[in-house]
């Protein structure tokens, strides 16, 4: 029975991915991408990696989907306003062009197919090295937490996790760098739909509690900072959509503090213990549990803030030209 489910899931995942690529319209692609992300999340559950499944569903299907939808909203008027563009999109290129492209396409397709076959063979033949699970479980009592994944992420390999939190902050900085826009501009249009605002208000505490649960549950089971951060980030995005731009009302320094707290506290704590003569990110086993919880909470807050700000700023980058048009 379970083999049948797995087989169906595998076929479904590949089918959705293909459909997503082959869809005629961008909006179809985006919705198929949602579905693809969820199918992938289910596959992760079947593989026993619940942590990854939650992250996959939240980031790939959730956050990315929101960004895609936002981009889509920006694309659609541009395409429909300009009829020539629409024709260029709809009409396939002339037959001559198709013919001349056929050979390179065929070669590329064959090359990629061959590469895929070799990749499959290599993956298939991979011997089972056992991984580091046994080593992680053996040292679990000294790590301060009871779940091996959390122990690896926040203690054994805290350095990698710290750098990855830095990458998220860098992503935000990259958006500022690309757009050249100021920090925390006042938002554009607020949603006027009272029902939408009520739903957002109602779901905010629920999402907050669920995020907090995932964060705390990470100590003993699948969950943790990244998963909680996505849920909290969703709160920020919904509030933004509902016309309550949380970050625009905060003072500048407080917003920046929230964004950098996760990375900064993680590092300062590491430096403090290093000054005592330990290594960077070395926690005394007696306090490791509580320290990890604090680091995780602050990291989750910072990542949630970064996700919210990324969404809010991309939203503004697209609204900017429209506002200019309306004023002139």
């Amino acid at each position, binding site marked *: 029975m379970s083999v049948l489910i797995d087989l169906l899931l595998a076929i479904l995942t590949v089918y959705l991915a293909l459909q997503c690529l082959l869809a005629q319209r961008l909006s179809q692609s985006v919705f198929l991408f949602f579905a693809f992300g969820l199918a992938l999340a289910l596959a992760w559950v079947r593989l026993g990696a619940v942590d990854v499944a939650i992250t996959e569903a939240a980031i790939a299907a959730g956050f990315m989907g929101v960004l895609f939808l936002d981009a889509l909203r920006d694309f659609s008027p541009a395409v429909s306003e300009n009829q020539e563009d629409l024709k260029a999109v709809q009409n396939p290129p002339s037959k001559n062009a198709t013919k001349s492209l056929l050979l390179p396409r065929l070669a590329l397709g064959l090359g990629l197919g061959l590469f895929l076959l070799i990749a499959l063979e290599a993956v298939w033949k991979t011997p089972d090295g056992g991984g580091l699970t046994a080593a992680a479980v053996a040292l679990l009592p000294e790590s301060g937490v009871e779940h091996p994944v959390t122990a690896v992420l926040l203690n054994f390999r805290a350095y990698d996790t710290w750098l990855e939190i830095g990458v998220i902050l860098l992503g935000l900085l990259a958006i500022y760098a690309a757009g050249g826009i100021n920090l925390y501009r006042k938002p554009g249009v607020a949603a006027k739909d009272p029902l939408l605002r009520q739903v957002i208000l109602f779901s905010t505490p629920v999402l907050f509690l669920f995020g907090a649960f995932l964060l705390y549950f990470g100590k003993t089971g699948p969950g943790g900072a990244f998963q909680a951060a996505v849920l909290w980030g969703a709160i920020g995005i919904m509030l933004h959509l509902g016309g309550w731009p949380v970050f625009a009302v905060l003072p500048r320094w407080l917003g920046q503090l929230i964004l950098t707290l996760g990375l900064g506290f993680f590092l300062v704590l590491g430096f403090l213990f290093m000054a005592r003569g330990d290594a*960077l990110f070395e926690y005394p086993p007696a306090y490791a549990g509580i320290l990890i919880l604090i680091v995780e909470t602050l990291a989750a807050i910072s990542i949630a803030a970064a996700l919210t700000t990324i969404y809010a700023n991309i939203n503004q980058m697209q609204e900017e030209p429209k506002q200019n048009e309306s004023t002139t």
Partner: protein
Amino acid sequence: MTDLPTSPFPALLVGLPILVATLSLFFRPRGKAVVGLMGCLLTGGLGLIALVEVMQQGTVIHILGGWDPPLGILLRMDSLAAVFIGMTAVVGVFISLYAWWFFRAREATNGGFPLFWPLWLFLWAGLNGLFLSNDLFNLFVTIEVIGMSAVALAVLSGKTAAQIAGLRYLLAAITGSMAYLFGVALIYGSTGTLDLGLLRQVLEPGATTTFALLVITLGLMIKMAGFPFHFWLPPAHSSALAPVSALLSALVVKGAFYILLRLWMEVFGVSITFSAGQLIGLAGAIAVIWGSWQAFMQTSLKLIVAHSSVAQLGYLLMIFPLLILAPGVAAGSADWLSPAWTAGVYQVMAHAFAKASFFLSAGIIIMALGHDHKGSLRDLASRMPMTVMAIGIAGVSLIGLPPSGGFFAKWMLLKGIFLSGQWWWAPVVLAGSFLTAGYVFMLLRLAFATAREKEPFRPVPKGLEVCALLLALGSFLIVLPAEYLIQFLESSEAFGSGIQSIMEGGTYGND
């Protein structure tokens, strides 16, 4: 490896720049620049102190979190890493000083790009982390930090051309990262360890290892713009702001080369064939000819310099075929290994200094003239003698004329080529030098020619010209301590080693 002396420097070299970068975010634009410059000087000083520490103590390590590998991560600073970190420190400090004056001069018109400072500090931390890393997955994370900050820096100017080039750069960088990560997953799945030292012991030849090496090499080749994956480099490097172009060309691409060298020489010896080395060398040789020719054909100064980077990176790939011993050759009798390694390290350093100087000079010219079309370089020698001198000196090092660092690198490369009997690489080295001489002398001829018409000319801060000139001189000065430096490098395990290639062929190569 865990019994080596422990030092706090490796942790500080990564932590400190990121701490300052985070702090600088709280400041207003002017303060960001001040804090950023202080952070850069501090990081540079720290890098040099760490280099001295390694010279005195030998290889030092830092066991992060106190957890031994394979579970934990170990930072290892051997002489090879120390030299790369020292080079980054010197070049980085000069570029930072240049950036300070450069952005001050442009502050009135476009706000002085305050985000440059935190991004550059993140990039520096990523580079230091990469040179220190001894863990296959941690290397991936440092690549991510470097890639993300490099792309953000590349689009900082806000110009449409830079954004298009930056998007291409981002896509190439992500493709490279994913390919690398795929290889890491295969290796972790089959061996259960990520530590480079342990991997070397447990890695077994087979389809998985070979395929993992293939995708990792592919990913890193994309990252270092090795032929035929060089397409993203010229637009991204030439459309960025001048200090950013210098950083990207002088330092960022070297990171991927460093990993490639480490992984091939120290880890994947079991599945490397002689022909794989020849293929990488071939890619390098084509890059040398193609990049130099393209540089020769360009009409704008920054595009000339950017295409020249493709060629100069090609020389780095050409040391790989020399380091792989044909079946039956004993490592002890291979006297060309040391020259080949020296050529690699010196080519990295000479190119870092010369190319940084070249891009900084291009920035000065753009600032003075408002554009960098090569025709407008006429009569530059009388108006900006110091910049022309910097271009001349850096150019001489790129060509490989004595007594520059570039000459020493190419001389050693030729020596390695002839000692190993792989004579077929020699014409490529010579042809590359001739083509380089072509575009460098073309630029110099224009600079000394009399102007047809006077173009409007804006004065440029002297500090900018001094930075560019000092970096150009640096590409000569690195030759002075050569003997001492090579002796120091030989204390590193990898330096001077070769790989005994395996006999049977299969699906190997780089593209």
